């Protein structure tokens, strides 16, 4: 682990102060972020492109 990252993790204060430092403290917020992250605009064409399948 890089030193900078280690310091960031070790120096975290109480939970309520963490959100501003980029730490998710609420499970609904976490779910929302993960939903956004994994969501992709889906069309068969885009999925095929992503998988490297050529359209005929």
């Amino acid at each position, binding site marked *: 682990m890089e030193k900078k990252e280690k310091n960031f993790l070790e120096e975290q204060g109480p939970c309520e102060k963490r959100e501003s430092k980029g730490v*998710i403290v609420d*499970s609904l917020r*976490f779910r929302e972020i993960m939903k956004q*992250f994994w969501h992709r605009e*889906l069309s068969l064409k885009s999925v095929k492109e992503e998988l490297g*399948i050529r359209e005929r």
Partner: protein
Amino acid sequence: MEVLRITGEKEAKQSSLLPENKNRFIFASQNKTKQELIARAAENQKMVLQGALFLPGQEEEKLEHQIIKRLIREGERKKSQIPTIRDFHPAFYAIDIAEAKALKMAETYKNEAIFSSDIVVLCDNKVLEKPEDQDQALKILRDLSGREVKVALGMTVLTPTSFGQKVLLKEGAYLTIKLRDFSESEAEQYFRGVKKENCLNVVGALDYANPLSRDLVSDRPIKLEVLEFGRKGGEAPKEVFISPDILSQLKDYFMGVPSELTQEMLKRVKLLRKPNK
């Protein structure tokens, strides 16, 4: 929720004779908690978990051991080459195991979408096993005191498509958790408070979903890295930091079937199986 159980070869053959339902899939695991979590995600996507059993006559764990051995052999062979992120990121082991399970299942269930997931738990770069009994669970837990635990999870879906060929979707994520220093009596006290079967059911003997587990985890934020397959930037992981106070609500992540990702993958399966207009 409709859950049709497939228990053997005969049922598998019959299932392929049923009118084809594009929204059905099979989940390759014997784990009841995982089955419940995946059935819930499927219900949200209006999909049907058709069968949730591993191959009859095949032991899931035996197959996993064979796969891990093969991966280690392959890893050693690669040492002389220039390493890639795949070579040192444990999430790929979990993905490879999930993939191998799905491929094994596909030998029997040829016309079905097969969903498979796996988790690999590491401490000091050593893979932790599932405890065989309560004594072993206690020993594993004692050894984890004050240490960093990494949980790699991998998910794959092997699905037939409307355009003829089968497609394999894969995703992976990686959690890093620091446990606090705890004594032997605290570990024993923890085991008295949690359901024994939950601890025996998980790798690393810690039932993360139980609120009591929070007390064994340090205040350091949990790091979640997600592997970005098919996105710009290739396979570089993206990081999110989570407060350990919401640990008990991340059960689906620790069981290897994160709800949001599962639903997203099922959406893609539906799309890939939808008849071409």
